[in-house]
């Protein structure tokens, strides 16, 4: 079969599912961060597929915005990971439990 809109949506959903399961399974803050990046990219694929099949540029513009948000997330998120490591000498998210007390 020729790849159509449904094929790209299926690939996007499969990648998003893998990322979501990875966020649940990973205990490493950096691994969780990378799985979130995977989810963002699968959503970008959905935007590009719809932009192509509806002939609309807005989808690609939205992907550009998502990339900017991902860049901000990388900068601030990795800063948080470094600060967390400086305090706890680990990046296991189970150690982030100060708010429990």
């Amino acid at each position, binding site marked *: 079969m020729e790849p159509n809109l449904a094929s790209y949506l299926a690939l996007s959903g499969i990648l998003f599912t893998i990322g979501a399961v990875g966020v649940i399974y990973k205990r490493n803050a950096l691994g969780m961060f990378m799985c979130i*990046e995977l989810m963002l990219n699968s959503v970008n694929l959905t935007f590009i597929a719809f932009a192509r099949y509806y002939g609309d540029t807005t989808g690609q513009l939205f992907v550009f915005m998502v990339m900017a948000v991902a*860049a*901000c997330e990388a900068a601030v998120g990795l800063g948080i990971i470094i600060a967390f490591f400086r305090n706890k000498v680990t990046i296991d998210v189970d150690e982030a439990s100060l708010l429990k007390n």
Partner: protein
Amino acid sequence: MVSTALFFLFAGFAIACAVSLVYHKNPLYSAISLVGVFVALSCIYLTLASPFIAVTQILVYAGAIMVLVIFVIMLLNLDDEQPRTRLAYLYTLGGGLGVVLLAQTLFVFYSVLKTPLQPVDPNATAGSTLSLGRAMYTEYLLPVEIVGIMLLMAIVGAVVLARKQARVGLEAVDGKKEG
């Protein structure tokens, strides 16, 4: 025919790298797998007539964000993720949630298959960089400016987060040695 082969090649490569990302415990292997996913998705964007987004994907994600991630991995000298004693039902819960998400995916797939699709004009300019630039700086100028301000805020936030806090007065009270 060629587009079918290319789609399944890049889709298979992306899914394999994604599974490798989740499977590996060493963060460096996960990062390299994620770069593979980014490259595969960039090739898929090219098959969807989006050259600008494909190149930006390589430059921003594979080039900038992943280099930053690998810097952090080497800076913190991270090792393999240690296996921890976890409640057994959490794995089942994670797998179950994944199956539910996959079921939603297949439902969307089924819905789109049932919808009559309009034929795609191969000569349309929707994916060209010219139309994207024109839309970005005329119709959508305000979101583009907001993105610039957001990036500036992220840079300032990252600098504030990463620098050491001066704790001159509190050091005696804490009794905790810094560094």
